[in-house]
């Protein structure tokens, strides 16, 4: 029969609350335990190593460098620390005389259940993304102008054509519209091609002094801001003097800035302001664009779509035709391109709603933020 462990169980978590819960659990079942809020130093004196990581990815990364993988120690991912986990563990351990072997099995079982849960929720969110992407792509292809309109125009030609023997007589206006609409269709396909090129080619980074980068901003934004008067939109540009360097690909960062401003412009209400801040916080350089949107009908990023909207083809609202000469990544690929480029710069991109209490009513804004590391 297996004996109760003589060596203590090691428990790691950044949260004191988790450590208290687990420590008390092992105390109840009379197994010694040591708790720690930091991973270092780790000695090979424990019977079981239990790690409560914030994410499954963090656990997987740590598993690769876990120093005692060849020993009988068990590395367990324990997040979330929920009641089910305890119930399972307590049930098995208590009914099996607090046996170490059983405890290990219980821990492994809990890990497998956690893994299964993660896989299921991963699949669930994957399907949600796929569903939203396909739905958005259908909408984009059928929207105001582009491929959907070509289909309608060709139906109209088919309905109205007059057979003149060797030729058809076709309404000139329909042909003119078909040609005009073709520009939109071509733009959509070019957007796809731009995205493919972006993904296929590596992005080389070069060091640039931040003040030099800031000097280039007016030329970066010129193309997009020249359209702002059409909606009577004023640009507020605020630059903070920051020491240090950025490691960037200038061309791609210009693309990111253009896409950020274009996105803000597309969904801004008329007669409003677009604010563009270039600031720093600790070791990071921040680019922030804020624009006002209609509180009900158009624009805005609901919290449940904040991550989803960066996925390919996902769109919350179909864009108006008037922006199409500015669009480099049609079909809902603009934010995907930003996300991809920023990731290649070891940065982070987010987009969210912001509601500000106004004098009469609340005002709704969308805030897009890019964080890039400042280098020495």
């Amino acid at each position, binding site marked *: 029969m297996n004996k109760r462990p003589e060596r203590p169980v090691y428990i790691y978590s950044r949260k004191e609350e988790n450590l208290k819960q687990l420590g008390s659990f092992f105390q109840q079942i009379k197994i010694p335990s040591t708790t720690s809020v930091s991973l270092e130093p780790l000695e090979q004196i424990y019977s079981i190593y239990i790690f409560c990581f914030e994410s499954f990815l963090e656990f997987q990364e740590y598993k690769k460098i876990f120093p005692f993988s060849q020993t009988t120690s068990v590395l367990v991912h324990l997040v979330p620390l929920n009641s089910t986990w305890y119930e399972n563990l307590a049930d098995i351990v208590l009914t099996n005389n607090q046996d170490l072997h059983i405890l290990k099995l219980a821990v492994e079982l809990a890990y497998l259940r956690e893994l299964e849960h993660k896989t299921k929720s991963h699949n669930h969110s994957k399907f949600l993304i796929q569903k939203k992407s396909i739905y958005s792509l259908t909408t984009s292809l*059928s929207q*105001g102008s582009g491929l*959907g309109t070509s289909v*309608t*125009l060709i139906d*109209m030609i088919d309905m109205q054509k007059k057979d003149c023997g060797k030729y058809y007589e076709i309404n000139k206006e329909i042909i003119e*519209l078909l040609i005009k609409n073709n520009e939109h269709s071509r733009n959509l396909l070019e957007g796809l091609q731009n995205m493919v090129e972006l993904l296929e080619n590596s992005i080389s980074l070069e060091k640039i002094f931040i003040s030099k980068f800031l000097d280039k901003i007016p030329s970066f934004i010129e193309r997009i801001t020249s359209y702002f008067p059409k909606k009577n939109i004023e640009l507020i540009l605020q630059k903070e003097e920051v020491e240090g360097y950025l490691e960037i690909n200038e061309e791609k960062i210009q693309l990111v800035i253009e896409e950020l401003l274009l996105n803000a412009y597309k969904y801004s*209400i008329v007669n409003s302001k677009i604010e563009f801040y270039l600031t720093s916080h600790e070791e990071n350089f921040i680019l922030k664009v804020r624009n006002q949107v209609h509180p009900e*009908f158009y624009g805005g990023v609901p919290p449940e779509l904040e991550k989803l909207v960066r996925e390919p083809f996902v769109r919350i609202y179909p864009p108006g*035709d008037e922006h199409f000469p500015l669009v480099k990544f049609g079909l809902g690929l603009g934010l995907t391109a930003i996300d991809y480029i920023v990731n290649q710069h070891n940065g982070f991109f987010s987009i969210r709603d912001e509601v500000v209490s106004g004098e009469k009513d609340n005002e709704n804004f969308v805030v897009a933020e890019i964080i890039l590391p400042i280098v020495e």
Partner: protein
Amino acid sequence: MAKRILIIDDSAVFRKVLNLNLKNAGYEVGEASDGVDGLKKLIEGNFDLVVCDVNMPNMDGLTFVSKVRSHEKVRYIPIVMLTTESKEEKKQKGLEAGAKAWLVKPFSPEQLLNAISKLLP
């Protein structure tokens, strides 16, 4: 006398396509670029039917339908929704709000003209 139809859609190209299609079928056509513009033109004008998009800036199509249905002067004018929205849930909302037909883009001219002729005999 030709029946008058108001088209409400934020896409100028799409409005032209629709306009041409309806004109060729013998209707007189007016255009508006969103719900706010559409409501104003509908109240001021003398239209027999509306063809309206759903997702538009300033006022969306569903809100437009509700506003029309509660306006004494124009409440009985039939509205055909012509949209990229194919979700059943959205369609139900539109029909409950008072739309008379729900067609999905890209539309077939024949299908649209059939729907209109049923509402404007």
